[in-house]
């Protein structure tokens, strides 16, 4: 019988000390408890290639923020939660991060169907939802007051800025190959519009189902009088798409090829079967291969996220990063820090003040906070606008040949979120 009393004594002691200590712990939470940021991560599913790098960049940016004293004097932590690149699970992840983990706000999703599926839940829970998606849905008014995209330019601005260069340098008759969902439709609609404004014409639009694994059957639809083949593909089969395109044209005559780097994001350009891309052009959100005039802050950023001068992992040269997109995670964390500091953010009760503080922002200076370059931010449409790059493939490397101006991608506002209620 001796062990029973001892056990109850211990239990009583533990309970008592917990009670005694808890007011102290609570009191300290108001001042130094960490700021908790939820990260909606595409760790699995078709976005996994991006997710892995988004996680690395988030951790690099987090280390920097904490090394510089955190946010409002509080340490910062990030809770990562996998959404399987699935809109249904995306909404559940938003809920879990908010209610179970008690995160102050959520950031990080890329794939547009996930963003569109999750944003309504964020609004219902009244939690700031900062997306790194480059989709046009935020500025188009499809989301809500709680959803912001301050870290990356949207597709409409990207393609509008790019179209003049394409029609002037590559040709006026364009055939587009794009994935058959929201992200691809943004490309189709706004690139066609921008090409038409330049006196060019999109002569064929080839939509490919996002789950497709074999592509040769689509290529005969490319008209023979095409000057420029414009491709933007996403998902695990991108490499197959580009290889089959190379096989299809072989050594025969072929149009100029202009691709969004999405078609080869995370893929080594020196992969077998890609040599035919030499001389073709790509849009890049940020130059994967370090350019000779790269500023110091970009070098520091590469080191912080573990990327070498070729855009591959420092620990494995075959592990190529999603360099044209992942800066948005880094920059979004910078905006979160600025917004929380500007609004004097203390607890989840200040979430609305945070959104208003971000809406009041107008410009982002290039530097260690905004490593991709300077940007303007439109508080009404919740969308950032930055410069874009066009690169040419030479010997398996991407060499920048053109940089767009900030103004090239601007378009009239489609929505005013500040007029909506919280």
């Amino acid at each position, binding site marked *: 019988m001796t062990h029973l009393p001892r056990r109850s004594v211990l239990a009583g002691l533990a309970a008592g000390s917990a009670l005694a200590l808890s007011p102290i712990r609570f009191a300290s939470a108001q001042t130094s408890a960490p700021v908790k940021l939820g990260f909606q991560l595409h760790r699995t599913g078709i976005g996994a290639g991006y997710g892995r790098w988004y996680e690395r960049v988030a951790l690099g940016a987090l280390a920097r923020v904490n090394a510089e004293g955190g946010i409002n004097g509080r340490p910062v932590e990030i809770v990562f939660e996998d959404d399987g690149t699935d809109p249904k699970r995306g909404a559940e992840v938003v809920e879990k991060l908010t209610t179970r983990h008690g995160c102050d706000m959520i950031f990080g999703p890329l794939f547009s169907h996930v963003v569109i599926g999750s944003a309504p839940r964020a609004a219902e829970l009244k939690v700031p939802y900062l997306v790194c998606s480059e989709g046009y849905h935020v500025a188009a008014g499809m989301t809500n007051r709680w959803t912001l995209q301050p870290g990356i330019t949207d597709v409409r601005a990207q393609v509008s800025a790019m179209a003049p260069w394409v029609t002037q340098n590559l040709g006026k008759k364009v055939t587009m190959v794009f994935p058959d969902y929201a992200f691809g439709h943004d490309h189709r609609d706004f690139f066609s519009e921008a090409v038409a404004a330049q006196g060019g014409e999109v002569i064929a639009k080839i939509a490919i189902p996002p789950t497709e694994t074999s592509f040769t059957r689509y290529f*005969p639809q490319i008209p023979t009088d095409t000057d420029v083949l414009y491709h933007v593909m996403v998902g695990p089969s991108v490499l197959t798409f580009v290889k089959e395109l190379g096989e299809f044209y*072989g050594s025969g005559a072929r149009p100029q090829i202009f691709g969004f780097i999405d078609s080869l994001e995370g893929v080594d350009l020196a992969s077998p079967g890609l040599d035919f891309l030499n001389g073709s052009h790509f849009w890049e959100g940020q130059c994967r291969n370090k350019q000779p005039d790269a500023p110091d802050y970009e070098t520091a950023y590469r080191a912080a996220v573990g990327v070498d001068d070729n855009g591959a992992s420092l620990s494995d040269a075959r592990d190529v990063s999603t360099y044209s997109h992942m800066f948005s995670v880094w920059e979004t964390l910078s905006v979160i820090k600025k917004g929380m500091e500007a609004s004097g953010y203390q607890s989840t009760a200040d979430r609305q003040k945070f959104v208003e503080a971000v809406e009041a922002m107008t410009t982002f200076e290039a530097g260690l906070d905004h490593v991709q370059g300077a940007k303007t931010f439109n508080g009404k449409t919740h969308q950032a606008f930055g410069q874009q790059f066009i690169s040419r493939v030479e010997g398996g490397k991407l060499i920048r040949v053109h940089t767009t101006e900030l103004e090239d991608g601007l378009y009239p506002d489609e929505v005013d979120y500040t007029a909506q209620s919280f």
Partner: protein
Amino acid sequence: MGTGPLLLLASLEGLVMAAVLALAAVGLSLTFGVMRVVNVAHGEFYMLGAVLAWAVAQFVPSAPMGFVAALIFAPLAVGALAWLTDTALLKRLNYNPESTIVATIGLSYLLQQGALSFFGPDARAVQAPFELRLQFPWFGYSGYKLFVIAAALAVLAAVWWILSRSRAGLVMRATQVDRNTARAFGINVDRVYAGTFALGAGLAALAAVLIVPISQAHYLMGHDPLLLSFIVVIIGGLGSLRGTLIAALIIGLSDGILSMLYPPTLAKILATLVVALVLVFRPQGLFGAKA
């Protein structure tokens, strides 16, 4: 592109598709034919084969050597795993049709998530053993894809030979016809079942090693082959090798040609429609024996 070249490209793509279908389905058909077990994990054995092909290629410096090594290693490894599955799982369920379906569904999740844990979520390219590009006047075509067609024919011929000409095939057929009589004649039925299941899984892995250079290794890749294998096996008749080949040709060529001329979704609709019609009017399949 003119109609002639278009039809040529469509037929080539259709033949490749038929080869892929036949390769993926032959193992499933065999397992069902001999054991009357519907192996829902068949697609995951296929995925494992592709993933192992990638893993082997990481250790072997040259692409042709890696391909040959994978061609030997992947089917053996996957076959061994299937043997283990049979003795540890299916045998204990007495090969009850409903139980084995549920068990192999569970197994498919285990294999899929295992691949995600150990292999990661990325799609990995595996280099073809040779780079050959055929250049027609109108378009180029991968020489390796033509090799896949030839390989599919060779694999089907080999399976046919094993089943109809070898002693192992005789024992398998005897077990298929009457398990108890076979046992009375001294056939180790347990071993025949384990061997058949291993052979079916090994064939799936072999198919994956052959196909992965024109596709990519990915932990979710088993779903499509499973679905397509079921379509082929249902149309051709479960357990009929000839049916598998002919159904693969019908589906592959119609898909190749239709998807070239019309939206590819239409070809998928047609394949599903054919399955429905076959199930209504000839439930045992085109070449299946009446149950």
